[in-house]
């Protein structure tokens, strides 16, 4: 069976060019970049090149890049470092729609001596900027806000966020793990202090991430150990993955430049096709400010896990914000924060595309989804009720 992979916000396929770049460093070039001999030194030079490639994607300086083990490590590093550099301040600010990598750490901190403000969003997932401004005070150590949402793709307005947070001199971190490589980021323009990115969301392997730390930002390491990464992250480098990550950043930057591929066009084709073919569906999130690859769609009166498993029969991979998929009993915190009604939240599906997505795949999905929805609705007592209400009205 062919796999139609529309779950690229979960993870992506390693680009063949990335894999090719990496293989020698898993094979004959196994040296340690810290070694004195030129055999290891050669690996060190490749890592320096990867740091340059990564910096370029972000419009940053190479020495502002620290390689980490994953996006979550980047987030944790940034947040703990900020708290250590402001030991007397006990207030921290984030949004209600963050990824668990930030959300759960903030909740933990909230139980351990910190006062936490979770800034709300509106029905389209847009940040309440005035609430953000009002929450900032002399005691605020850190603001951490995601660049773009992993479930809905909604992009937060960073120029304005930077202005409001930096005018008060407060440290600003952003989890840009979904945004990097999908929309242009430029650290010389968007003056956040720290920014997290992850390799496997941009066609590099899993297990590699990076943290951007603006020059002059006080920093304290998360992993204390050797002198690697300029003493900012101990531990022998994941050489092949760093080199692959660098290549993936270079390719992503080139794709952002070229605009050959109209990912947003495919995404819109998918949404328009579904709207035309399926009654009672909703597109979740601010469609004006959204990642080009992400679509969160709610199918009313049916449940997300059932939809996913039926799509799985056709080889279609997507994900859901429904309760049943997560093992919890409540639908995703993102959709609840947006106030999406339960009728829709339980039946939400996220399709996330990449440059590898094809028109044929979109058309295949458009062919397979409507019968699945129809079939599940034919089993749903609420759909039956809805239909009879409509008929009698």
């Amino acid at each position, binding site marked *: 069976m062919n796999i139609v992979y529309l779950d690229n916000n979960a993870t992506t396929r390693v680009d063949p060019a990335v894999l090719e770049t990496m293989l020698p460093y898993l094979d004959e070039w196994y040296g340690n970049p810290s070694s004195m001999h030129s055999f290891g030194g050669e690996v060190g030079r490749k890592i320096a090149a990867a740091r340059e490639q990564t910096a370029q994607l972000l419009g940053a300086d190479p020495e502002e890049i620290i390689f980490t083990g994953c996006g979550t490590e980047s987030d944790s590093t940034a947040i703990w470092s900020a708290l250590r550099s402001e030991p007397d301040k*006990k207030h921290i600010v984030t949004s209600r729609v963050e990824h668990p990598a930030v959300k759960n750490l903030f909740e933990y901190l909230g*139980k*351990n*001596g910190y*006062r936490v403000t979770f800034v709300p969003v509106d029905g389209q997932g847009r940040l309440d900027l005035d609430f953000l401004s009002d929450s900032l005070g002399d005691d605020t150590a850190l603001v951490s806000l995601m660049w773009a949402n992993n479930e809905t793709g909604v992009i937060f307005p960073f120029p304005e966020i930077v202005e409001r947070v930096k005018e008060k001199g407060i440290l600003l971190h952003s989890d840009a793990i979904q945004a990097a490589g999908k929309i242009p980021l430029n650290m010389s323009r968007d003056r956040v202090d720290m920014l997290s990115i992850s390799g496997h969301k941009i066609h590099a392997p899993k297990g590699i991430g990076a943290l951007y730390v603006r020059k002059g930002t006080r920093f304290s390491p998360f992993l204390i150990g050797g002198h690697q990464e300029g003493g900012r992250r101990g531990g022998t480098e994941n050489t092949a993955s760093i080199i692959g990550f660098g290549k993936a950043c270079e390719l992503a930057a080139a794709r952002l430049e070229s605009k050959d591929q109209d990912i947003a066009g495919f995404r819109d084709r998918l949404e328009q096709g579904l709207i035309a073919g399926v009654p009672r569906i909703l597109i979740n999130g601010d469609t004006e400010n959204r990642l080009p690859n992400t679509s969160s769609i709610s199918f009313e*009166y*049916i*449940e*997300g*896990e*059932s939809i996913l*498993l*039926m799509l799985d*029969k056709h080889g279609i991979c997507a994900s859901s914000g*429904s*309760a*049943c*998929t997560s*093992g*919890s*009993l*409540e*639908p995703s915190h993102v959709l609840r924060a947006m106030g999406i009604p*339960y*009728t829709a939240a*339980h039946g939400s599906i996220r399709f996330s595309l990449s440059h590898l997505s094809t028109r044929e795949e979109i058309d295949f999905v458009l062919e397979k989804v409507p019968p699945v929805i129809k079939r599940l609705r*034919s*089993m*749903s*007592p*609420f*759909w*039956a009720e809805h239909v009879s209400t409509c008929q009698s009205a």
Partner: protein
Amino acid sequence: MWDYTDKVKEHFLEPRNVGVVEEADGLGEVGSLACGDALKLSFKLDADKRIKEAKFQTFGCASAIASSSALTEMVKGLTLEEAEKITNEDIADFLGGLPKEKMHCSVMGRDALERAIQSYRGEAPRDVDGLIVCECFGVTDKQIEREVREHQLQSMEEVTAYVKAGGGCGNCLDQVQEIMDRVRQEEGWAPPARKPRLTNIQKIKLIQETLQREVSPMLQKDGGNIELVDVEGDQVLVRLKGACSSCMKSESTLRDFVRNKLRELVAPELEVREV
């Protein structure tokens, strides 16, 4: 991805008996859109008062649909007396088992069957006289008590897996715990494994640490603080300082917050008193 058995997948992908029986003798509806799953079960009896036909409509995940489908197959040909003996475990067993977190799907099946039989007999549904404990999922004390008793549930996780109670905001956790404790005493079950008993010195030290680490920072935020005065048996005597001492809410602050922290982290039988 959930580890569903082949039988669950089969009943999900090719469900039996979808729909509503025409001129049904019994009709049972449970669940709601807000809860994330719901089941409408209807049946018709033959001349011998055996279930001739049963159909379902389900809103929910794969295991909810599979449990409903399985149920309609299981009840066919049974008398109502036989059908009402079907337990949620029977439904799960019929499907070759369900993931632990999905047991509530089989409970929903059994509940709908009960309601349907009650509707045929003209009886009031059994659960409505209970009081809502879990507001997120509309679960009553009677429902919780029943599952706790039938399945010897001794942890919050198990209760949530069976009836969903406590799976949302968490406001009802204390009440659910009380129900579990009461049933355990009534049934004479051995208490669940506890932390080893503390010596008095260990207990006082742990209380002191917990107050300093978990409680003080929270009270300090509001300009108050707490001081440990003495420990007499299970009575923890404390003094509130600063803004807390004059606060109208201090009593409830103490009772809910401090007591819960100490019970969670030190010993479940502790009481807190202000001096």
